Structure formats: structure tokens, C-alpha cells
């Protein structure tokens, strides 16, 4: 992956809003995200945090307003492979092992040139569980197996919906470390979370959601 110029504007939303049955899910939002930046999406339950991430990932269509990716109108084809989404549903097949799940993900999305599934699984703290079916893992270990994708796949923008849920204290510190590494390498991330985020790589941007 080429390390981007630190000032590159990656994502820009202009008066973005979304309606469900003519009811606005959240008030119009405008924000920018440059490479090397982390944005925390904050808001109460039901304020549309997950909806926002699903829109940015391209799973939901944009209601009103505009969305730009690297200066181009954001569309499936302009950002394909550059955006990695991790939602409440982890996208793991429970009959497959973490290693097999990673192989499938790498087969579909490609992989970081200098990383392999073995090193990634060791980094994420699943040493010894690489070949255990995911259904036998604990909730926190499942989360780690899904987070391993962040390390292996080559994506610039991470959209993480509650990445800290189910993780122990070591796991939370690990997610923070992953975010620091990613932003230091010129990536960007949008993170929703209820918990406290201690991010050492500079002040994160805050996106406040209002219903």
C-alpha cells in the first residue's frame, strides 16, 4: 500500500441525511476525514450511528446530501476495496476456523503484501485457536477473529461499528493500538463506541449524531 500524503482528503459528507419511511433517521451531517485521522461517531442509542456507517460502506443508499471519496462522488466502483466495514454481525462462518475465514476474506478483498494469515492471527491474540471452528470460540475471541481482517486486508478507510464490544481490557488496548498504527500509516477510521476510547495518536475528530 502506498502511504498517502498526510493531508489527502479521503471522505467528505455534505449535508448527509437518511430517511426511513419519510422519517429522518439523523439530522443532516457534514464532516471531512483526511488520511491519518480517526473520527469517533457519538450519539445515544437509536441516533443512527450504525445507519451512518452502513451508508458510508455503501450498503444503504444515500438519502439526501452528497458523499465524496477522494474528491469523486462516492460509489461502489470508486471506493471498492478501499473501505473495510465491520458491523455487529461479524461476517464469520461459524463452521470454519479463523484461519479459513481469513483465507476467504483475502480471496475476495486481496491481502497486504507482507502479511500472512498466521502472523495476523498471532498478532490479534488467537495463537493456538487458528484451526478451531469459530463456533467454539468465546464472544471476545470471535470479535478478535473478525478484527484480524483489519490487519490482513489492504483498506484505507476502516468503518468499525462498536469494535470494543465483548473485548477484555487487553483486547481494547489492542484495538487502540491497531487504530494508531493504521492512522500512522496514512489510513483513516470511523469508529462508533459507547465505551471510553483512549487514542494516543492525536486528538480524534468527533461526529455527534442527533436524532
Amino acid at each position, binding site marked *: *500500500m*502506498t502511504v498517502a500524503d498526510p493531508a489527502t482528503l479521503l471522505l467528505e459528507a455534505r449535508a448527509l441525511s437518511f430517511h426511513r419511511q419519510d422519517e429522518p433517521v439523523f439530522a443532516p451531517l457534514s464532516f471531512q476525514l483526511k488520511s491519518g485521522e480517526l473520527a469517533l461517531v457519538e450519539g445515544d442509542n437509536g441516533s443512527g450511528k450504525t445507519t451512518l456507517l452502513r451508508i458510508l*460502506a*455503501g*450498503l*444503504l*443508499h444515500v438519502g439526501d446530501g452528497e458523499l465524496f471519496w477522494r474528491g469523486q462522488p462516492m460509489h461502489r466502483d470508486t471506493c*471498492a*476495496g*478501499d*473501505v*473495510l*466495514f465491520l*458491523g*455487529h*454481525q*461479524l*461476517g*464469520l*462462518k*461459524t*463452521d*470454519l476456523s479463523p484461519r*479459513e475465514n481469513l*483465507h*476467504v*476474506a*483475502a*480471496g*475476495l*478483498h*486481496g*491481502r497486504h*503484501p507482507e502479511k500472512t494469515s498466521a502472523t495476523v492471527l498471532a498478532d490479534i491474540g488467537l495463537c493456538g485457536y487458528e484451526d478451531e*471452528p469459530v463456533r467454539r470460540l468465546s464472544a471476545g475471541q470471535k470479535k478478535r477473529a473478525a478484527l484480524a481482517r483489519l490487519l490482513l486486508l*489492504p483498506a484505507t478507510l476502516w468503518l468499525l461499528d462498536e469494535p470494543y464490544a465483548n473485548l477484555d481490557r487487553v483486547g481494547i488496548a489492542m484495538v487502540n493500538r491497531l487504530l494508531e498504527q493504521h492512522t500512522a500509516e496514512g489510513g483513516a477510521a470511523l469508529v462508533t463506541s459507547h465505551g471510553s476510547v483512549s487514542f494516543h495518536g492525536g486528538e480524534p475528530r468527533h461526529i455527534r449524531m442527533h436524532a
Partner: protein
Amino acid sequence: MKNPGLANACAAMLRRDLTLAWRRRGDIAMPVLYALIVTMLFPFALGPEDSLLQRIAGGVILVTILLSMLLALDALFSSDIEDGSLEQLVLAPQPLALMLGMKILAHWITTALPLIVATPLLAAMLHLPAAVIPVLLLALLLATPLLSLLGAVLVALTAGTRRSGMLLALMLLPLCVPAVIFAAGAVAAAQQGLPWLAPIVWLAAALVLAVALAPLACAAALRIALDA
């Protein structure tokens, strides 16, 4: 950044679904057992009269296999929707229609192929003449992928609705009528010693059309299902 390439992505998808099916290989045997039991019921219900069973054998086997395939069709996309794999698939930088085509192919290999392998046994149970069995197998090799593809479109359309199994059957069975007519027509013609190639060619033409269009329809339907 390195794109894995289309061939790699297709292989990864196919390998994933075949591995998953192999881990639950008990499920693969279910449709075959169902087809065996249903076929066994006919001689009991109609009496063991050779000429009658021979006359209906082709049609009975076709309809039995169609219904057996319906049993497994429901699960084609549902587990992927539940665990979020489908979201990841939609977001992958690969043509979704092609990836879904691979899923349908894996589904055909794990449900229809075992049924086709068991067909000579079903034919023997109904005293179908051995000379007709190759025609029956050829008709099934063309008709079953057609059913898988049509079924996949309907599964994608009903994705997200609760208790979609019955709805699926009600929608799919009428669409299967042409496939059943042509497949049964070929078998009946072969039984009477008449030329049977024309209905087979019709089946092949319908299959080509479905291979080209059904994955696209599936992709569009599933994108809509997720966008809700």
C-alpha cells in the same frame, strides 16, 4: 494494494461453500433420502404393476427430484444474511453476480449432483428401462441447474421475509413447469423410441439464458434486501 483477481475470488468462494457443505455432510444426504422414500411410496400406492410404473417413472422421478431440491433451496442465502457474510461479500471489490453464481454452483454440486447420482437407483425402483436412463440423466443435468438458478432468484427476492419456505415453493413450482414438460417429454420420447433431442435442446437453451441472467437478478435482489 493488491487485487486478488477474479479467478482467485471465484475459487475462494467456491471452496468456502463446498467446505461448509462438507462440514455438514449429513445435510447433503437428506434430499437424497427424501427422494428415495418418496419414490418408494409410488409402488405401494399404485401396485407393483410393471407397465404402469414404467409409464409414469420418468415423470415421477423428475417431480421427486424437483421437490427434493426445494427442501435445501431455502438455506441458500439465509445463513450468509444472518451472520453478516453477505454484507462482506457485497462490499468486496468483486462482481457480486459472479460471486453469487459461484454460490449457486456450489449449491447445485451439493444438492442436485447427489440426487443425479442416485437417479439410476430411483429408476430401477420404478422399472424404467435401462436404455432410457442416459436420456433421463441428460435431462436432469440440464433441468436441475435451471431449477437451482430460478430458485436462487426467488430465494434472493424473498430474503429477509419470515417463513419464506412455503412462499418460495408457491412461487417456484409454477416457474418449473416448462423445465418439467421438456425433461419429461424427452424421457417419454426416448421410451417410445422417438427422437428426443429437441426437448433436450430447449432445456439447454433455457439453461444458457438462466446462467446469463439469474445471477444478475440475484445480485440486484440481495442489494435491495440489504438496503432496508
